[in-house]
C-alpha cells in the first residue's frame, strides 16, 4: 500500500527538486572528466534470420562446452540449465531412434523423427507465436534476447531482478510507452514504462507456460500433418529412390567371405572330399536365398564337378570304421577281408589311393567272397560296406579350371544377387505398396481429390467411411452419385477435371518409375547373362539351368512392375471408366449393349427391356466392384440370365466393358489422357481374354491384333512382354498321324532338328504362351518314348532339346487370374470407400485440432489483450508533475 503521506510529501519535494548545476569554479571544472557510463558490453539481439541462424549454429557448440565443463564440476545455473535443454533433446532423440530401429519401414522410421522434430519445433514455436502477438499489440517483444558480457545469450525479461535496461534504447522505450498508454507528464516515465514492460513480459511468459501443455500437442499435430504430407513424404520418397539408384551405380559387391571360402577349399588343392564339396556348395547356394535361385546355383556348382575323376583314400582310420561295421550286415570274415585289404593298400605308409574303378572292383570282390549274413542281399552288403566304411573316403579331383569356374560362377550369381537386392529396394521405394513409396504417396494424395471431384456430401461420406455400412448401401450411394454426374454435362466436366488432376500426375510418375525399373531389370539381365556367357566360354560348359533361373526371376519382376503400373492406371481412371459404362447403360439404346443382349443373352421369356436392364446391372457391378468378368458367367443366375452360348459371350462382354470412351466423356479430357485411358482398357481386354476360364477360349490372332491397336507405345511394350498370344492347335488325330509318319520314315532326327530350330527361332510373343511350352515339352517327351533305343543318341538329343526349349521358354509366367485382378486395381466402390474413410478421418482430426487451435487462439488473444491493463490487481500509480498537470494518459 502506498504511503500517502510520504507520497504527497515526496511529490511536493520532488516537484521542487532542482538540478545540480555544474561547478562554475574553474579549478573544479578543470578536474572533471565528463564522466558518462561506458558502452555496455552486452547487446540486444535483433530478431532476424541472420541472428537466429548464428545462434542456432553457435548453440550446439556452446552446449557441448557446457557439458564438458559440467562434467569437470565447473557448471553454473546458466550452463546447467542449458545442458538440461540439451539432455532433454538428446534423450528424446534417443527414444525416437530406439523406436525407429524397430519400425517396419523407412517411412515409419522417419515418422518417429518427424514426431520428435514437430514436438520440439512446437515447443519453440508457441512462445514465438505468443510473443509476436504481444509485440504487435504492446510494442515490444517479451521474448527479447540479449547477449551478456560473457557472450551468453539469455532472455531479456527472464529474471525480473536482472534486466539490462541500459541495452534498451531510450527512444525505443518511449515508443513502447506511447503504445502502452503511459502518460507522458509523469515523473520517471522510463521507470513506469519499464515496470509495465516487466509486468507484461511476466504475464506473457506465464501465459505461454500455462498454455504450452495444450498448445504443444495441438501445434505438433498440425505441424506433423503439414510436414508429413508436404515435406516428409516427398523427402522420404526421394531419399529412398536416390539410395536405391546409387546401388546400381556401384560395382556389384560380392561376399568376400565366400570368395575366401572358395580359395581356402579349392585353390591349390588337388582333391576335395565330398563332404567339403557339399558344404561349400551348400553355403554358397544358400547365399542366394531371396532370389529363389539357390537350387539352380547349387546344381550348377555341382555340375562343375561332372567328369572330375575321383579316388578313394585309404587311411588307418578305416580300421576303426571296419570294426564298427554292423555285425548284422557284415560278419567277421568280411571284416577280416576289409582289414587285410586296407593293410595291403597302406603297406608301410599312412595313406594310399585307389581309383574309383579299382575300388569298385575290390568292393565287388569282397562282397562276392563274403558269406552272406543271414538274409542280407549282397547288394545291400555292398552298399553297407561302401557307406559304412568308405563314405568319407571319396575324394574328387579338382580339375584345371574348376577353381576359376567355381569362383566365376559364384561371381555371376553374386552379381545377380546384388543387383536383385537393389532392384527390390528400388521397387520398395517406388511401385510397391510400402509406406513412403511413390505409389503409396500417390494413393495418399488421391483420396481427397477423388471425393471432392465426385461431390459426395458429408453425410454420404460418413456412410461410406463407416466400416459397418453394408456393401449394397455403399454401392447405391456411389451409383447414385455417378448417375447424377453423368446426367449433367457440367457436373461430368467438373468431376472429370477433378479426377484427371490426380490421375495424370500419378500415372505419369508411375510410368516413369516403371520404365526405370524395367531398365534396371534389363540391365541386370544383360549383365548377368553376359557374365554367364563369358564364363561358359572360359569353362566350355553350359549353365542353362542358372540362365533359366535368372530370366524367370527377372521376368516375374517385370510382371510385377507392369502389374503395378496397370493397377494405378486402371484404379485412378476407373471413375471415368465407370462414368463411361453408366452413360452407355443409361443410354438405353447403346448398340454395344444391345448387341450383347441380342447375341449372347437371349432368354425367351424376358422382354428386351428387362434383358437390357439385367445386363446393364451386371456390367455396372463388374466395373464398380472390379470382379473378374469371367466369373460373372458363374453368377448369371442372379441377373436372371441364361448361360451364354459360347466363348463369343465373354469376348462381347469384354468389348462392352473395355470399350473406348464415349464422346460425351471424352470431350472433357485431353486427347492424351483419353487415349491413355482407352489404351489401358484395351490392354485389360486383352488380358482378360487370355485367362483360362470355364469356357476356355483360346487366344487367337484377333487378340494380338487388338493389342496392336494400343496407341500408347510404352503400354504396348509392357503388354507385349508378358501376354501370351499364340497357340498351336493340337488335336489328338493330328498328333497320332504325325508321329506315325516320323516312325515310318525314320524322321525322328529330322523332327528333332526342326524342333530345335523352332525352339530357338520362336517369336517373342509366342514364347509367352504356356501352350507353346507344353507343346514342346510334350513333343520332347514323345520323342523319348517313341524312339526309345531306336535312335542313336536320342537321350542326348532329347536332353538337348529340352534344354533349348527351357531356355527359350523360360521366364514369362502365365498370366493368371490373380494377375488380372492385381493389374485391374481397386474396384470403384472400394476406391471411393477408402477415399471417404481417409477424408472423413482427416476431417474429424482437422476439426478437432482446428477447434482446439481456435479456442487456444481466442483465449490467448483475450489474455494478451488483458496483459498490462489496469485492474484491481494492477493499479498504475504515477507521480505526476505539479505544474501543468494532465493526469490523463496520452
Amino acid at each position, binding site marked *: 500500500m*502506498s*504511503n*500517502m503521506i*510520504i*507520497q*504527497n*510529501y*515526496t*511529490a511536493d*519535494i520532488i516537484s*521542487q*527538486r*532542482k*538540478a*545540480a*548545476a*555544474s*561547478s562554475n*569554479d574553474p*579549478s*573544479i*571544472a*578543470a*578536474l*572533471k*572528466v*565528463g*564522466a*558518462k*557510463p*561506458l558502452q*555496455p*558490453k*552486452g547487446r540486444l539481439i535483433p530478431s532476424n534470420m541472420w541472428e537466429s541462424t548464428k545462434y542456432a549454429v553457435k548453440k550446439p557448440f556452446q552446449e557441448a562446452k557446457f557439458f564438458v565443463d559440467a562434467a569437470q*564440476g*565447473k557448471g553454473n545455473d546458466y550452463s546447467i540449465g542449458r545442458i538440461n535443454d540439451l539432455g532433454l533433446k538428446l534423450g528424446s532423440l534417443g527414444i525416437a531412434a530406439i523406436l525407429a530401429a524397430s519400425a517396419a519401414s523407412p517411412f515409419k522410421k522417419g515418422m518417429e523423427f518427424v514426431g520428435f522434430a514437430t514436438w520440439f519445433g512446437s515447443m519453440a514455436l508457441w512462445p514465438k507465436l505468443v510473443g509476436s502477438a504481444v509485440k504487435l499489440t504492446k510494442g515490444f517483444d517479451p521474448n527479447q534476447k*540479449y547477449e*551478456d*558480457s560473457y557472450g551468453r545469450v539469455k532472455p531479456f525479461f527472464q529474471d525480473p*531482478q*536482472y*534486466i*539490462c*535496461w*541500459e541495452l534498451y534504447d*531510450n527512444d525505443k522505450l518511449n515508443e513502447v510507452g506511447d503504445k502502452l498508454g503511459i502518460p507522458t507528464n509523469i515523473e*520517471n*516515465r*522510463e*521507470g*513506469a514504462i519499464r*515496470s509495465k514492460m516487466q509486468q507484461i513480459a511476466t504475464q506473457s511468459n506465464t501465459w505461454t507456460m500455462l498454455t504450452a501443455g495444450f498448445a504443444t500437442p495441438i501445434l505438433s499435430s498440425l505441424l506433423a500433418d503439414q510436414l508429413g504430407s508436404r515435406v516428409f513424404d516427398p523427402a522420404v520418397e526421394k531419399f529412398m529412390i536416390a539410395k536405391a539408384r546409387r546401388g546400381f551405380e556401384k560395382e556389384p559387391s560380392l561376399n568376400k567371405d565366400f570368395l575366401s571360402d572358395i580359395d581356402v577349399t579349392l585353390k591349390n588343392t588337388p582333391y576335395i572330399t565330398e563332404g567339403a564339396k557339399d558344404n561349400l556348395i551348400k553355403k554358397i547356394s544358400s547365399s542366394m536365398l531371396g532370389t529363389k535361385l539357390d537350387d539352380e546355383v547349387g546344381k550348377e556348382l555341382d555340375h562343375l564337378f561332372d567328369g572330375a575323376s575321383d579316388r578313394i583314400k585309404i587311411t588307418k582310420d578305416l580300421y576303426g570304421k571296419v570294426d564298427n561295421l554292423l555285425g548284422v550286415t557284415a560278419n567277421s570274415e568280411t571284416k577280416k577281408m576289409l582289414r587285410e585289404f586296407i593293410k595291403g593298400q597302406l603297406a608301410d605308409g599312412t595313406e594310399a589311393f585307389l581309383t574309383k574303378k579299382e575300388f569298385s572292383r575290390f568292393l565287388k570282390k569282397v562282397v562276392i567272397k563274403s558269406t552272406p549274413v543271414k538274409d542280407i542281399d549282397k547288394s545291400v552288403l555292398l552298399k553297407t560296406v561302401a557307406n559304412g566304411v568308405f563314405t568319407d573316403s571319396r575324394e574328387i579331383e579338382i580339375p584345371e579350371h574348376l577353381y576359376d569356374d567355381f569362383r566365376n560362377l559364384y561371381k555371376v550369381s553374386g552379381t545377380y544377387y546384388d543387383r536383385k537386392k537393389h532392384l527390390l529396394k528400388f521397387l520398395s521405394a517406388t511401385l510397391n505398396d510400402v509406406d513412403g513409396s511413390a505409389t503409396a504417396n500417390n494413393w495418399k494424395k488421391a483420396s481427397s481429390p477423388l471425393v471432392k471431384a465426385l461431390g459426395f456430401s458429408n453425410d454420404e461420406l460418413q456412410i461410406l467411411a463407416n466400416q459397418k455400412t453394408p456393401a449394397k448401401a455403399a454401392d447405391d450411394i456411389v451409383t447414385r452419385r455417378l448417375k447424377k454426374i453423368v446426367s449433367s454435362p457440367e457436373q461430368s466436366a467438373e468431376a472429370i477435371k477433378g479426377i484427371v488432376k490426380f490421375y495424370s500426375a500419378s500415372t505419369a510418375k508411375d510410368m516413369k518409375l516403371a520404365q526405370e525399373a524395367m531398365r534396371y531389370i534389363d540391365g541386370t539381365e544383360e549383365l548377368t547373362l553376359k557374365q554367364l556367357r563369358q564364363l561358359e566360354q572360359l569353362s566350355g560348359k553350359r549353365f542353362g539351368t542358372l540362365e533359366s533361373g535368372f530370366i524367370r526371376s527377372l521376368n516375374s519382376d517385370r510382371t510385377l512392375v507392369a502389374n503395378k503400373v496397370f493397377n494405378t492406371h486402371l484404379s485412378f481412371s476407373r471413375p471415368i471408366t465407370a462414368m463411361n459404362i453408366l452413360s452407355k447403360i443409361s443410354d438405353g439404346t447403346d448398340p454395344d449393349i444391345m448387341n450383347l443382349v441380342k447375341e449372347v443373352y437371349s432368354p425367351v421369356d424376358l422382354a428386351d427391356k428387362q434383358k437390357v436392364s439385367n445386363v446393364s446391372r451386371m456390367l455396372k457391378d463388374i466395373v464398380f466392384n472390379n470382379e473378374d468378368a469371367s466369373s460373372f458367367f458363374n453368377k448369371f443366375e442372379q441377373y436372371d440370365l441364361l448361360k451364354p452360348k459360347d466363348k463369343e459371350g465373354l469376348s462381347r462382354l469384354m468389348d462392352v466393358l473395355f470399350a473406348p470412351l464415349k464422346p460425351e466423356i471424352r470431350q472433357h479430357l485431353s486427347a492424351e489422357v483419353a487415349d491413355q485411358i482407352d489404351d489401358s482398357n484395351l490392354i485389360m481386354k486383352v488380358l482378360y481374354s487370355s485367362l483360362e476360364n470355364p469356357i476356355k477360349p483360346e487366344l487367337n490372332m484377333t487378340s494380338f491384333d487388338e493389342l496392336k491397336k494400343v496407341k500408347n507405345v510404352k503400354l504396348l511394350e509392357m503388354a507385349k512382354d508378358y501376354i501370351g498370344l499364340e497357340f498351336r492347335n493340337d488335336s489328338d488325330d493330328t498328333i497320332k498321324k504325325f508321329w506315325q509318319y516320323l516312325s515310318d520314315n525314320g524322321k525322328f532326327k529330322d523332327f528333332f532338328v526342326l524342333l530345335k530350330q523352332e525352339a530357338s527361332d520362336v517369336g517373342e510373343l509366342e514364347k509367352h504362351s504356356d501352350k507353346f511350352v507344353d507343346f514342346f515339352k510334350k513333343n520332347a517327351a514323345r520323342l523319348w518314348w517313341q524312339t526309345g533305343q531306336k535312335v542313336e543318341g536320342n537321350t542326348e538329343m532329347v536332353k538337348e532339346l529340352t534344354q533349348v526349349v527351357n531356355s527359350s521358354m523360360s521366364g514369362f509366367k502365365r498370366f493368371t487370374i490373380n494377375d488380372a485382378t492385381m493389374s485391374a486395381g481397386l474396384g470403384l466402390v472400394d476406391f471411393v470407400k477408402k477415399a471417404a474413410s481417409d477424408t472423413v478421418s482427416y476431417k474429424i482430426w482437422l476439426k478437432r485440432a482446428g477447434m482446439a487451435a481456435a479456442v487456444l487462439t481466442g483465449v490467448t488473444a483475450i489474455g494478451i489483450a488483458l496483459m498490462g491493463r489496469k485492474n484491481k490487481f494492477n493499479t498504475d*500509480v*504515477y*507521480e505526476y508533475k505539479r505544474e501543468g498537470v494532465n493526469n490523463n494518459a496520452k
Partner: protein
Amino acid sequence: MLNNISYIPSYYSSNMFQSNLQTTTPSYQTVSMTNPQTQAFYSIPAITSYYQPPVLAEQYNKQVANNAYSNTVQPVASTSVTPQKKMSPLLENFMKTQRPDGVSQVTLEPEKKSATPYKNHLRTLFQNNEAVIYAMIPRTFNAKDTNGDDVIDGEEETGTFINAIERLDELVGYGVNTIHMLPIHEPGKEVALGTAGSIYAPKDYLGIDPKLDDPNDPRSVKEEAKQFIDECHKRGIAVMIDLPSCASVDMYKAKPELMATDEKGNPKTPQGWDDIRMFDPWQDESKRVLNKELVDYHKRVIDLYQELGIDGIRADVARAKPVEFWDEIIPYARSKDPEFAFLAESYTYEDASPMLNMPKDRPEDLLAAGFDSYYGQYHIFNEWKTGKELNDYVIENLEMSKRLPKDKSLIGSFSTHDDKSPMTNGGAPYCNMTTGLQMTLPMTNPYFVTGFESGDRYVYKFRDKIARESDTGNLKYFVHNEKLDLFNKSRKPGGENPEIGEFMTAMSKVRKQYNDIITKGSFIPLDEKRGDGEKIISYARSLNGKTLLILANKDVNASHKASVTVPGLKQDQQLNDLAPVYTKGDNISAAENRVELELAPASFHVFEINTPNIEKEAKGVYKQNL
C-alpha cells in the same frame, strides 16, 4: 592554590614512537597565567571544543585549577584547528577572579606548528601501488571486553578515537600505511539492525557518532577524531574514511529531498538491506541531471572529512551513485586536496544488477570517472579452482588498465568486512598465503581487515541472543555468521594466531625491499606445468633484469607436486625463500628452465632468481598502464 601550579608535563611517552617515525613536538593551546607577585607561570589547556557544553568546560577548569599538577590530568593536544569560539564568559570570569589583586593577564600562546606538517599523499600511494591498507571500525577497534562475553556493555569501554591511538604502532609494525576507517556517523535507530545499529545506516552524514567520544576526554568527538587522524599521520598512516552509500530510516524521514522512492512513493531499499534507504541521485534520470540537494549534501560531507584531516574516501557500494555524481564530488574534493584519494567498492562488470533497486556494478566506469582504485574480485579467490584462474584475473586487470587513464589499481581484497573470516577458508596458512600473494601481485594495494592479523574467526557469543540493553530499541544481537560485527558494540577483533601478523610484518619488509619490482614490474604468468600442477600458483615479477619468482599452493588440504617452466632458470640457481616458511614438507629445487616443486597445503614462497632475460623468453609478459 594556584601559586603552586607548575608546568604541566607533556603527555607523550617514548613507547609511542618507532625509530623510523619522526617525533613531533606536541602543540596545544593553553591559557597561561602569570602570578604577578610570584612570577609563577602556569598554563592550563584552553577549552577550544566547539561542541562541548559550557558546563563541562567549567567543571574541567575547576578540576584543573584544583589539581593542576596531577599526572592524571592529561592535557589534550589540540589540532591545528583554530578554535571556533572564545572562552566562555563563565570561564573568563573565573579566570579573572584568580588574578592576584584582581588583576590577570591572559595571553593566548600562539599555536605551535609541527616541524614537518603532514601532507596527504594517499592518492600517490594508490597510484604507485604502495598503499598497505588496514580496515578498522573505531567502535570496536580497541574495545575492552573485560568479562569476555564479546559484547561491550555496562561499564566496559567501547572503542573510541582516543583508545584507538593505542594500537596505531601495532599497525605500523604490520607495514600498514593506510587506514580504512569504517563509517563514523551515528547510526539511525529506526528499523535498525543489532543493538547499536549498522554503521552503514547513518542518521546524518554531517555528524560523528557520539558513542565514539572518549568519556574521559573533555574534547568533542570531532576533536577526538581529529586527534586520532593526526596521530595516524604522525606515524605515516593515511586515513581513508568510509562514505556510506545509503541512509538510515531516520535520515530518510528527515531528508526526503535526498531519498529515492518508487512510483508508489515507497522508499527504495537495496534488496536484503532492510535497515537502509537509498538516495536518489537524479533530478531527471532520462536527461541525466543530478539531484542538486544530494550533490550539495555530499560536498558538505567532503568538507567535514577534509576538515577532520581525512586523506581519502572509500565509497561504499560506489555503483549506488552514477558516474556523473562522482564526476562532481571527486573534482570538488581534489580542488581542495589534489591528493584526496577515492577507493571504489566495486567488484566486477555486471550486465545488470542482481540486487533490486541497486544499480549494476561497473568498475571500469568508476575508475574512468576518477576513482583511483577499486576492490576487484580477489574475495572469491577461495572459489577459484586453479592457479591459472588467479593469473588470468590479474591479466584481465592489467589489460583493463590499458583502457583507463594511467595508475589505476585495485586492492588485495582477499578478505573484506563483507566476507567470512579467511580463517574459514584454510586457517592461518591460508591467511598467510593470501598475504604473500597480495604483497607480490601487480597493480594491487594490500588490504587487511581488522582481526585478520590475529586470525579472528568473527565468532560472537552473543549472536542472535537477546540483549539487556540497546541503543536502537532492537534487543536482538544481529550479526552475520563468521563476519565482522557491524551492528553491535562488540569486542576488539582478536584471535589466536598472532603468527599471521608476524607474517604480515615480514612480507611488508620484503615488499619494501623489492618495492620497485612489485609495484612497477611486469607480471609473467607461469602456467606451463607438468604433473599435478593445477592448484599451483606460479608467476614472476620482473623489472630491469631483476626477477622474483612466486610459488604457492592454492589447495589448503593437499600437497601437490609439479614442474613449472621458468624460462631462463638455471640448475644452479639458489632458491632462498624471502618469505618466512610456515608450512612443512615443501620441496623446491631449480632445474634447467624449470623449477621442481612439491608444495604443502596453502604454502607460499618467493625467491629472487637470476633470470635477466625472462621477459624476452617468457610466453606472456603483462604490464600495468603506469
